[in-house]
């Protein structure tokens, strides 16, 4: 009994002073291995763990602080996500990497708020997600940055009238088109119509028929719909004989969308990066491929790796692993070095300012680079 008591006391003491005596940095990772977030969390986690392993092999973060990751499945369920975040904190997590969408990140951030534990989303891009508190961070170029860059490209192409297709079911599918619309209007374009859909909506033909009947007709249709809604929408649109230019968010940057054949020929979308020959990104792909046998076919892999880089640079700048200090240091990073692109948190509301790529899909299912640009923070549509 005495022994048991002593053991318990020692365990509690270790738990209380966990951050002070740690000789390793504990990062908790929410990773949906099933459900709607699995296609994004899976690659993001693979890229993150790959770069953490590389850093650990070289001595750890900044060459001297080994990282231990705790990874827990959320099944894309917000209640489950909240539970696993609490468990990971109980197991000593000093940093939480949350699922690739705003809603689970916001839920996780409510739990991490009490201890000021820095919380960074794998790839959530809705700018509202950082409003929870000063400990919450984005990692990917936010929807308003993507919308602003894409709107500016659309106006440069002489497009004047946009029809927005959005879903109120998620911050991403609602916010993206709205940011685009607001940037497009401020550049002299006009939003002539909107359609609302539900996630996993069975049928898009009614929306398509309404777009087709619009007078005047739009010269561009913009949606932040993801799979399987986007494939269903574009099939219905082209199947009804509507050949209007379609533009969308970075979620269209997937092999599934590119594999849809002729219906996606000419579709333009934003993206977080492009692996130019000889770039750090191309080098990451080669290393990842060599080590795992898998070819990273979307940006979530490399963004996962960049999250490891962001954490390393924040810990270095903080000079400690204290959660509040790491959060404060992260928020001040200016032109931090990333693989997908460099990142600046200073002067933002913790959604990093990063390059946005505009890319097009060709008839043979390839991705074609169009331009790379950074949104102007002064004219960004506000969340």
């Amino acid at each position, binding site marked *: 009994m005495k022994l048991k008591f002593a053991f318990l006391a020692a365990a509690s003491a270790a738990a209380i002073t966990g951050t002070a005596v740690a000789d390793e940095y504990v990062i908790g990772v929410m990773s949906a291995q099933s459900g*709607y977030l699995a*296609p994004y969390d899976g690659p993001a986690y693979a890229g993150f763990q790959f770069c953490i392993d590389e850093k650990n092999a070289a001595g750890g973060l900044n060459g001297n602080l080994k990282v231990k990751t705790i990874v827990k499945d959320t099944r894309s369920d917000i209640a489950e996500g909240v539970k696993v975040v609490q468990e990971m904190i109980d197991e000593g997590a000093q940093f939480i990497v949350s699922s690739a969408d705003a809603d689970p990140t916001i839920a996780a951030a409510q739990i991490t708020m009490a201890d000021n534990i820095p919380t960074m989303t794998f790839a959530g891009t809705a700018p509202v997600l950082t409003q929870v508190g000063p400990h919450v961070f984005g990692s990917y170029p936010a929807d308003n940055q993507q919308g602003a860059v894409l709107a500016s490209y659309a106006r440069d192409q002489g497009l004047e009238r946009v029809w927005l297709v959005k879903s109120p079911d998620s911050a991403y599918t609602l916010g993206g088109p709205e940011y685009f619309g607001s940037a497009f209007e401020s550049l002299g374009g006009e939003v002539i119509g*909107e359609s609302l859909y539900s996630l996993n909506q*069975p*049928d898009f033909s009614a929306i398509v028929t309404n777009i087709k009947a619009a007078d005047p007709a739009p010269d561009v249709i913009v949606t932040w719909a993801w*799979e399987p809604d986007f494939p269903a929408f574009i099939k219905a649109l082209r199947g*009804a004989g509507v050949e209007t230019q379609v533009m969308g968010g970075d979620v269209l940057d997937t092999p*599934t969308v590119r594999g849809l054949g*002729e219906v996606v020929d000419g579709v333009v979308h934003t993206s977080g990066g492009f692996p130019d020959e000889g770039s750090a990104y191309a080098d990451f792909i080669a290393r990842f491929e060599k080590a795992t046998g898998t070819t990273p076919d979307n940006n979530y892999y490399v963004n996962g790796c960049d999250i490891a880089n962001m954490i390393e640079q924040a810990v270095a700048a903080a000079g400690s692993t204290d959660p509040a200090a790491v959060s404060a240091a992260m928020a001040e990073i200016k032109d931090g070095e990333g693989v997908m692109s460099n990142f600046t948190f200073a002067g933002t509301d913790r959604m990093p300012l990063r390059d946005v790529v505009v890319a097009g899909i060709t008839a043979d299912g390839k991705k074609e680079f169009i331009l790379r640009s950074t949104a102007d923070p002064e004219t960004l549509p506000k969340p």
Partner: protein
Amino acid sequence: MELLLQQTVNALSLGGVYAMLALGLAIVFSIVRLINFAHGEIMTFGGYGIFLSLVFGFPPVAALIIGLAAAVVMALAMERTAFRAMRGADVVSLLITSFAVSEILKVLFQNGISARPVPITFPASWSGTYQVGDITFGVVPTVSILVTLAALAGLTFLLRRTVSGMAMRAAAEDIEMLRLLGIRANRVVAVAFALSGLLAGIAAVIWTAQRGSVDPMMGFFPVLKAFIATVLGGLGSLGGAVLGGFAIGIVEVLAQAFLPETLAPYRDAIVLAAVIAALLWRPDGLLPAAKTSRS
């Protein structure tokens, strides 16, 4: 007028898919009192059958036939491995078994094939348009309406004019009596599952041709709607399932097309409220089965 005509085609096309899925649910329910929530996974499996056949280089028509066959095989396998052992169990136990089968299959699809949707590309000519006067119609929605009508006509013929069909209708009335008459109940049940699998397979073909991708959740949402359709039509009533399927499809498309923008977010709520109102008016469904089963 043109808009209304086109939206009608859209409504019938979606309603047809719901009708086929609802009919598949109703055939099985009428005989073994099982509400098969794994019906959606039969449809998904059919979709993956098409996807894998295309990946292995089969021509598109062969891929569609393989997809149909895959759905039938999956329905039969499900009956043999999961539901035969539960024959005679109460409705709730059967329902829970079907949820378990559904979850297991979804996880297998996710881990064995892909968590992400996989693309299905049919020849471009299949998804073209044609003109009638000034109005443009899509090939896929039109073909889907024709296929639905043909499938329903074929099924009606089978149920009314063949021995197997009559045995199935008799089993729906009273399976014990059928046994006493010397008909092998297992065979009748297996044929019912095979038919429901075939209908799910046809739905999978139409669904993938319209949507261009297959994912582990593909069958879940349409089958949820189809379940509502069977309740609306009258649980266990085959004609009711078809009517319910078309009713849900039509109300959904019309709500999407004509609701003012401020009401659009309440679309699903409005459709379901209409279903509840219909059930308050006719608690046994629009076309109740002879032996009524309320939901």
